[in-house]
């Protein structure tokens, strides 16, 4: 059974600088996703729309767009769940390269600031770093992040202040800070609780609403705030504790 849908696509031509909406009518099946609809429009109507996509199963995180005002992955958004007409726009808070393709370099650079890796302390006696299922459970949710940048697109704070690290970087930083094998936690907290760190978040909560993997970046940021406060108290007391121990010696 097919149903007629009107698809409005925001387009941008970087050579002429023109910015407009294309309107296409398609007949869609029940199982058709927004990505399938775009593929169909490109194949059958030769529209030449530019967009990113790869895995078609919400794993690669490359087909992020704004559909009917909500940041979503096109491959896991079904047309039957959307109101007609369906409006597809590029992700917000990123510069548009062409049509639905955006430049996410700035946000990706911020992920680098979050030191997204674990540093193992390997001793001679134990050459592997062991993690129990209980320890893994703590980071399992935030480990699901696919860096699709939907949360950054939905964050109004990031849109108003591009220096803010953004919810994606904060969620990833939380994941590595909570990792039992990690040893640079304090260094990471220094950068995260700095001027452009987690304190700029005003807890709108929309980043968690749009996350296709239920990573809950909003929650991660709030927990990072608590960790930041404890880190500040710890670092303020540390020199005193050190000097006390020295004087005892």
């Amino acid at each position, binding site marked *: 059974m097919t149903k007629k849908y009107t698809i409005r696509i925001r387009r*941008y031509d*970087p*050579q002429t*600088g023109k*910015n407009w909406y294309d309107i296409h009518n398609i007949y869609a099946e029940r199982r058709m996703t927004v990505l399938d609809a775009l593929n169909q429009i490109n194949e059958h109507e030769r529209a030449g729309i530019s967009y990113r996509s790869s895995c078609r199963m919400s794993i690669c995180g490359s087909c992020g767009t704004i559909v009917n*005002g*909500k940041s979503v992955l096109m491959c896991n958004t079904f047309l039957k769940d959307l109101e007609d007409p369906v409006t597809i726009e*590029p*992700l*917000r*808070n*990123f*510069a*548009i*390269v062409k049509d639905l393709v*955006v*430049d996410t370099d700035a946000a990706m650079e911020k992920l680098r600031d979050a030191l997204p890796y674990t540093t193992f302390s390997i001793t001679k006696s134990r050459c592997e770093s062991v993690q129990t299922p209980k320890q893994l459970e703590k980071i399992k*949710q935030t480990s699901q992040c696919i860096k699709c940048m939907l949360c950054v697109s939905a964050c*109004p704070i990031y*849109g*108003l202040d591009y220096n803010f690290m953004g919810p994606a970087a904060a969620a990833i930083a939380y994941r590595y800070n909570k990792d039992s094998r990690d040893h640079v936690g304090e260094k990471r907290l220094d950068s995260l609780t700095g001027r452009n760190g987690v304190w700029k978040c*005003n*807890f*709108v*909560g*929309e980043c*968690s*609403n749009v996350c296709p993997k*239920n990573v*809950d970046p*909003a*929650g991660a940021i*709030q*927990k990072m705030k608590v960790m930041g406060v404890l880190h500040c108290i710890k670092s303020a007391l540390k020199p005193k504790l050190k000097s006390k121990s020295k004087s005892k010696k």
Partner: protein
Amino acid sequence: MKKLANTPAPDWWKEKPAYKIYYFREYSGILIAIWGLYWLWFIGAIIFSRIILAYFPDIDPVFKYILFIPLKYYFLFNCIGFIGAIIHTITWLGVMPEILPFNLSKKQRHLIFSLLILVWLGLSTLLFILLMNSLL
């Protein structure tokens, strides 16, 4: 090749209910701040009125009127504070399920929100009863 900036529109906060709720929550802080300032004014008026009236009995009536505004509009200022507190608490409890360390469905989120509201109402009633008992 030029890239097109895709920044939020000036009226971005009207786009989604979550953004509107956020705005309500932030602006309700102003109402609570007014209420807080009112109490400072109220306490100040009580403390300094005796001193001022004792030393300057022929004080300017306009100044006297301004000084005693908190005592006259007691109900109005408390209503402002109450409305601000209600909006702030409800919208804040609405986002509280976000920071729980497990995945929740929409139904579970609503359930936790309603439970939080119930706990808040229960605690408020308990405090009110205790306060009234100690006053009477």
